[in-house]
């Protein structure tokens, strides 16, 4: 059964229509990449799911239930963690406080979860008392991921995690994502870097001007002529 399903979802920013009826499904445990050019509606799709933008029509189902009034807070409580573009960390809070905040939707705050997250990200442990704003770009992206992990999300939404990072760091991040996915977290990642996204994901969708134009196995899309030409560049 699908953990997440979008049926004909439309969204607009004022007069500007950003999504023209997006339909897609994400199975429990899946790793899905959403590709597309700038302005294709990738970010808006994630925002619609997490309730950061209001949708004007269409339906969103999470865990088999239609979700009506989506707000970021309520979606977080349902188990959706959204890491927006530009590594959303609380720059003036310490690394540790950022992680504590990740566990906000959890009832208590478990040191075991924290230890588990630090196992994934040993560098964050070294810098636990530093202000998040003083971390390097790669470390901040790690922190954003680690914070999402503290929420023990059922669905992790990531917007451009590779943006502005060195290739080595990008690989590190996608390795981490694969490990999170293996331990049961469903992942939807929006990426400009189609090459690495398709290599990591199991399924993928291609958006064009606010619509899904292509969807299927990531491996098939990798071989698809038009995807290769438009997004992989060979």
């Amino acid at each position, binding site marked *: 059964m699908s953990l997440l399903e979008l049926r004909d979802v439309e969204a607009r920013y004022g007069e500007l229509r950003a999504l023209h009826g997006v339909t897609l499904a994400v199975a429990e445990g899946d790793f899905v990449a959403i590709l597309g050019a700038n302005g294709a509606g990738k970010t808006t799709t994630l925002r619609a799911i*997490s309730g950061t933008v209001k949708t004007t029509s269409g339906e969103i189902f999470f865990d088999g239930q239609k979700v009506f009034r989506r*707000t970021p807070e309520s979606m977080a409580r349902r188990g959706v963690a959204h890491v927006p573009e530009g590594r*959303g960390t*609380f720059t003036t809070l310490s690394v540790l406080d950022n992680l504590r905040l990740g566990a906000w*939707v959890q009832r208590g705050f478990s040191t075991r979860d924290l230890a588990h997250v630090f196992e994934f990200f040993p560098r964050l442990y070294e810098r636990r008392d530093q202000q998040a704003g003083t971390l390097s770009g790669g470390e901040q992206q790690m922190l954003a991921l680690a914070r999402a992990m503290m929420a023990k999300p059922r669905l992790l939404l990531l917007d451009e995690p590779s943006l502005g990072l060195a290739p080595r760091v990008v690989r590190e991040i996608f390795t981490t994502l694969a490990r999170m996915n293996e331990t049961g977290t469903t992942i939807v990642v929006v990426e400009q870097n189609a090459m690495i996204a398709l290599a990591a994901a199991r399924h993928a969708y291609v958006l064009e001007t606010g619509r899904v134009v292509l969807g299927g196995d990531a491996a098939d899309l990798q071989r698809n002529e038009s995807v290769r030409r438009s997004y992989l560049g060979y």
Partner: protein
Amino acid sequence: MTNLLQQIVSGLASGGIYGSLALAIVLIHRSTGVVNFAQGELATLSAFICWTLMDHGWAFWPAFGATLALSFLGGVALQQTVIRPIQSGPLLGIVILTIGLLIAVNGLDTWIWGGAAKQFKGPFSTSPINVGGVAFSKQDIGVIVVSILAVVLIGLLFAKTKLGLGLRAAAINPVEARLAGVRVGVMLALGWGLAAALGAVAGVLAAPSLFLEPNMMQTVLLYAFAAAVLGGMDSPVGAVVGGLVLGVLLNLVGTYVHWVGGELRLATALAVILGVLLVRPAGLFGRTAVRRV
């Protein structure tokens, strides 16, 4: 020498009042960026409520507790009804609105309680004790202790509790905080409630020595602004330390710089604001955010 000590002690006592009102101002400013000009009048309103309860035969401490609770709820209600509808609008609009609130609350006080000064009997005796030639009252000591206690409690709340973490997160980055599941709207309302309760502390502390009347906190508000700017508009510790330092400074300047005297007290406070803004805009305890770009 005795005179110097005397000026310091009574400066600390008035500084404690500036500091606790400054603390209320800082709390709202750091969580929403709004400078609440009505904070002083709200404190006066709280003091009137406390006075009324005592006038009806309540003992001080129960009346004080009830006043704190009512002020907290009042702050929450105020944010929900008046501030929230324009929260997403320009900051200037909200600030102007708080000036409107200042006038409205002042009018309300006069309408209900009249303009005549009332004597407010606080929990601490105002009769002077003489220690080595320095005269001070239990009221003076009480004000200093209570204002320091308030900042310690607020500090613990922010640093050690989950609620405090949520309050800080909502202040730093509301969009992200919502994504983490923090109900930012609730946090903002709680921030106003806390500030109103702290203002009530300031009002009740001030009332015994200033006499309770609708304009009681108006000059105090200006000193509180000076204290907040001096300590750093976003630093709770800075607010209280700023208040205490300002209280002492004003007394010393008033005593030893003869051409200033008592008349230019307010002007001295404004000079402090100007000086801090010129030399160290973040204030003594203000932290400029460190960011790697």
